[in-house]
């Protein structure tokens, strides 16, 4: 029982991070905090992907001079790298848009910057 806890721990952490992220995305009115929420959600998903590829005591998936024993799955790591790159682009775009919104309205409160309503 005890030896399973460290293995499951990353999944719990990912779920917790995702929960916090959703709370922030839904309830926070500050646009910068909203972006932080999305960054947290991205981290949760990345952590989940890396954790599911991990094998206890596994080696790095590099085929030269490989020591005996299990190997960590390489595919989720590739997915995570791609996802990190994409998320950098998304977050950068969001931040530039917030800068523009701030220039127009002088505020980054989502309640006050609602020209589009109804």
């Amino acid at each position, binding site marked *: 029982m005890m030896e399973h806890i460290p293995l499951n721990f990353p999944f719990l952490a990912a779920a917790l991070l*995702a929960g916090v992220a959703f709370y922030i*995305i839904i309830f926070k009115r500050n*646009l910068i905090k*909203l972006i932080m929420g*999305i960054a947290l*959600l*991205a981290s949760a*998903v990345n952590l*989940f*992907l890396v954790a*599911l590829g991990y094998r206890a005591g596994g080696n790095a998936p590099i085929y030269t001079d490989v020591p005996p024993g299990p190997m960590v*799955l390489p*595919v*989720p790591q590739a*997915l995570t790298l*791609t*996802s990190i790159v*994409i*998320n950098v*682009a*998304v977050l950068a*775009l*969001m931040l530039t*848009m*917030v800068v*523009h*919104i701030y220039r*127009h*309205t002088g505020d980054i409160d989502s309640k006050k*910057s*609602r*020209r*589009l309503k*109804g």
Partner: protein
Amino acid sequence: MDSLITHSPALIVALPLLAAFAIPLINRAGPRVRDIFNLVIFGFVAFFVAILAVDVYSVGIHVYTFGATAAELALPGGYTVPVRIMFEVDGMSIFMGIIITTVTLASLIYSLQFLKGRTGQARFYSLMMLLYAGMMGLAFTGDMFNLFVFLEIASIAGAGLAAYRTNMADAVEGGFKYIVISAVSALLVLFAIGILYAQYNVLSIAALANYMQYTTLDMMALGLLGGAFVMKLAGVPLHMWAPDTYTVAPAGTTPMILAASYTAMYALYRMTFSLYGGHIDTTAIGWIVIIIGVLSMFIGVMMAVHQTDIKRMMAYHAISQGGYMLLGLGVGLAVIADPVALANYGRDAMNGGIFHIINHVFYKALLFMTAEAIFFRIGTRDTNKMGGLARNMKWTTAFYIIGALAISGIPPLNGFASKLLIYESVLRFNPVLSVIAMFVSLVTLASFAKVFYSAFTGPPMPAYKEVREVPKSMIIGMSILAVLIIFFGIFPGLIVDTIVAPATDALINQASYINAVMGAVP
């Protein structure tokens, strides 16, 4: 020619992707060179889509494996699971491809003079090509991870385009909403992909469908995927971003962002029919889709009636029309397990739902373009401030009338053809749903008639005395769509037989989708 056909799926995505990054460089040679470059590149891409379509309709599912010795080789010797990245183009994929390509072509031509004299044109066309590549990749991809990648490419490009007019505060807000919704939904998709990969160790959609056990974790993944794609396609109750984003996006790109929403709808169908088909409780899931569809139809149109912003009204109608598509497909999904009902009306309902996608994208694109043509000339989207425009903008008025009649389902235009298919088949499934659909159509007509009277008819307004017709390229862009609307309305049977029925078959026939990749593997 053969090798062109073989490699066309890769070229269709690669060419615009490369062009997107070449455009800022080519722009240095002058705007005229850049415009010609855009049109030439897009002409090539449209040619590849055409030959690929002919190939798919005559030969069958077209599998393209990247990096394999032969492009058709999905399974390398000795492997039982596909390990390479691949595109899998079937009737439904190429159907989306045809929609996206036509709309992008019209948008590109429309934008040529629409953008004249504005800053950042090179980046605008870059993003347009990027959005096109993202949507086509999403429609063609055969594996889950590239689904996520192309979804993100389309989202980033779409948000950038929606916020293109950064001098307007509402444009930036609309773009921001779009990127937030897209980022959240894409991350949900990635979460679901992780769950699926953890269980089956494959990413190919066909292989996943082949090994699908439908465990509790798979149900969670289906829920995440469903939620994410309903959010992206602006189905009620996750529709709140759509009016804002469609309203503010510049004219040439609103139709493309609309098409991007329906590409997400395509992804939803791909998941429910091809990936989970045969395992899920189709009646229950079908009814969920029907309920989302009916809610979208009804709430969308009710919100549209009292709008005074012309594009915002059209955006709510887009949500409402999306409901028709979901209704048609939902009915098909609900009876897919019952061969008699499927043959009697289920297939027709699906035909109607799929046919409505292409019809709606065409007439709504046309309507958005006319609205933006008005905005281009008089600088307001408020219908209360318009009046008497039919005197000065004859072409725009004619196109508006065509679009408005098509969306209201008046024969002989294309909206009538697909709506009739939906009414007839849904009537045999559940009469109440059909009555709701007809009622919504009636309200749609009323709301477009109201805008027609307030914007185009009435006494000439002194402020708009000098208003002229929009430039030629905008008229050409709109007339491409108008001609297609009329053509589809006059020959609906031809269109249903040639492009819609193969798409329906591709969704119903899950085994052929799996076998195209997995071959003889049990």
